[in-house]
């Protein structure tokens, strides 16, 4: 059996075992496709990512060099068979690039002339402070639920949904416990390994993830603390799904203690508060949580900034590394909102441009080292 960290691989033994038992898997794109609904349908949700992608040339043929390389790389892995264990894909319009992964794959699959593969896109509001947003999103999720029931011949009952919410909430609680350990002056886990764990959470059955993470946390508490780091860092940015990226920074003496990224803390932080109807509870939680600057309203940017500042304090961060994915306008423009505030708050910020395929590791290492030198404190 793979260790929990090994489950961060896109293809791992948990998925293999699931498939061997005849289980169906659904690839999900972006942060507003709730895993709970698939789980309640007896399906395994696997969030699409491109961890380990080393060649996105076919993705570029389809999506062009102007597309974000994360999206191109995800599409590459859909084409090259990495994701051949999927029985469907469900996307939300997280950003335009995420949408195009889905659109291109739908177009590509059309040629197969098969209705076996489940394809569905849902809309997620970008403004959540109106009285219309939640009912709209609930309708979208109800349509998804009905579509899954129809396609896979299952019934998604209220009871099943509530059980799934509880399972996913347990994952969230355990991940928060993991992050609590990182607040310590001498944390017991690196940022790279922490990312592997949150990546594993989107690539395996949640019950198995919970059981493995519980054991892992118990083991972590007995581990020798890491105290040879020079600076405590926070990593912010979009789809950072590559632990190697963090390792480059950590190899230079920076310890990434927290993050605001798509595959890190943001996806598994706030629990779904189950009040009343399950789908409505899921919708409210997914719509309200501060996940991504995709939301087009000042309040979200303010909340994101407040959350970052809170984490900087709670995790005793010396500096922030802001990894901007090239061609990502959503995260890329965030400096418009908080750069001045961060300066005013005297929080050092390193802005680095990132491509999904790590071709600039040397440059990242040099810049990270210089930044660490700048922000390190004598008592670290």
């Amino acid at each position: 059996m793979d260790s929990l960290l090994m489950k961060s691989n896109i293809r791992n033994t948990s998925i293999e075992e699931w498939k061997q038992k005849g289980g169906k898997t659904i690839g999900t794109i972006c942060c507003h496709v709730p895993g709970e609904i698939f789980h309640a349908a007896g399906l395994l949700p696997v969030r699409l990512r491109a961890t380990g992608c080393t060649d996105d040339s076919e993705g570029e043929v389809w999506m062009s060099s102007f597309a974000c390389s994360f999206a191109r790389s995800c599409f590459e892995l859909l084409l090259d068979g990495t994701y051949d264990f999927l029985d469907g894909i469900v996307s939300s319009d997280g950003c335009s690039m995420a949408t195009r992964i889905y659109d291109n794959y739908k177009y590509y699959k059309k040629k197969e002339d098969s209705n076996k593969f489940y394809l569905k896109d849902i809309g997620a509001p970008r403004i959540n402070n109106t009285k219309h947003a939640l009912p709209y999103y609930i309708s979208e999720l109800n349509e998804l639920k009905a579509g899954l029931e129809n396609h896979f011949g299952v019934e998604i009952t209220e009871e099943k949904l509530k059980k799934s919410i509880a399972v996913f909430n347990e994952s969230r609680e355990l991940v928060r416990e993991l992050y609590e350990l990182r607040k310590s002056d001498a944390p017991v886990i690196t940022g790279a390994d922490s990312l592997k764990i949150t990546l594993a959470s989107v690539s395996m059955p949640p019950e198995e993830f919970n059981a493995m993470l519980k054991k892992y946390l118990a083991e972590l508490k007995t581990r020798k603390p890491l105290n040879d780091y020079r600076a405590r860092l926070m990593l912010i940015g979009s789809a950072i799904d590559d632990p190697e990226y963090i390792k480059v920074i950590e190899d230079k003496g920076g310890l990434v203690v927290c993050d605001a990224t798509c595959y890190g803390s943001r996806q598994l932080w706030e629990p779904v508060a189950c009040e009343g109807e399950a789908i409505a509870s899921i919708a409210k939680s997914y719509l309200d949580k501060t996940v991504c600057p995709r939301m087009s309203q000042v309040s979200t940017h303010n909340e994101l900034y407040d959350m970052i500042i809170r984490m900087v304090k709670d995790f005793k961060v010396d500096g922030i590394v802001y990894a901007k994915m090239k061609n990502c306008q959503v995260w890329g423009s965030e400096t418009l909102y908080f750069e001045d505030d961060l300066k005013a708050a005297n929080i050092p910020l390193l802005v680095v441009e990132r491509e999904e395929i790590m071709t600039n590791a040397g440059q990242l290492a040099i810049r990270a080292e210089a930044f660490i030198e700048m922000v390190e404190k004598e008592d670290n």
Partner: protein
Amino acid sequence: MSEQFDLIKYLSDSVDSLLDYMKKKSPERLWMFEVQKSQWGDIYNAHKDGKKLIYVSACVPPELIFAFDCVPCLLDAIPTRLASQPELSSKYIDFAEQFVPPTMCAIDKVDVGTVFSGDMVEKPDAFIYTTYPCDNSRAIYPAIEKKLGVPTFAIDAPFRKDDRGYRYLADQYKDMVVFLEELTGKKLDWDRFEEVMDISNQTNILMDKVSTLRKRVPCPLPSRLLILNELQLQMIGHPGLLKFFENQYKVGMSNIENGIGAVPDEKYRVTWLQNMLWSNAGIMDWMEKKYGAVLIMDAFGYQKAPLFEDPKDRERVFMDCGRKALASPMIHGASGPAEIYLDLVDQVMDEYSINVAMFVGHVGCKHTWAAAKMVKDTIAEKYDLPTLLMDIDACDARYKSTEEIKEIISEYMESVVGAKPIQ
């Protein structure tokens, strides 16, 4: 200290100069400039005329703004207007790049640059934006809201373009009316709204007729008019735009009656399948002269729009606002699921007898570039035509020189299409 440059005054004055010039040089073409005078003059004079000036984005129904006797200023119309003046557009683009990534769409960079530089001297009374058309605009509009510090109303545009989407928009448009009522201190005058809807419907009917004229072989209207048709996004419901389409239709009909085409010998019927090349519109004239190649219709072109079916039915009217918004150019093609974009491309290819397809792709429009292969394959499979893929910056002329663009098009026309230069 140098005086603050007033961009809107400059745009308004420029149109005045052009009008004076055209009165002497070719008065028969005056109608093309009068509509621009209505556009920029109204914005510049809004406060002098005692009207509220409201900055808006795409999908904010101009009809509702006009019904309140306010003046809409479509922020995205400024970059497209400035695109032909690189000395100005580049100033704002460079200014914006202090804050936003250089990969951001130049339309949005100019939006940021004009607002953040202070050159939009006259402060608006309000800002109303939607979450369309793309990630770029979604990223900057809230920042512009913060910068302006004026009453703002934001509308969430739905991903889906069906009744649920229309309803979602309709409900928010009703809230927008409440916002406008509070802003202006007066209730929506439905009779006045009906008058505006009537102008809007007449204009849309004419727009449809003009598009139908363009289906004729040879095309009776020149390539360039496609750019001016875009004024619909800001001015639908304005009498000036109705007059513009009346004139355009008259000219088109007259040309047909007299057997006149956009060029003396139309050889190629071209479509551009992404944004318009605002930064180098002269390329269209050059294609006409060099190859007899007329830009018949673009994929984001203004062809047909839903009408207000029953202006007295208040519920239906707001649903129609939603339908119209989601069918508007750029939105119907570039935002939402790619299938709709592909259907549109197919429709343009089919209905306008296109024999040359070019994806003249604005680099800032990354999500349409991410659909380019689907566009190209759709055309190849159904129409057996190769599509030229050419990257340009629709608003930043520095990206690719005129010579470079001409060379790429020439190579394609002569080696792939088999065209022979006329001159």
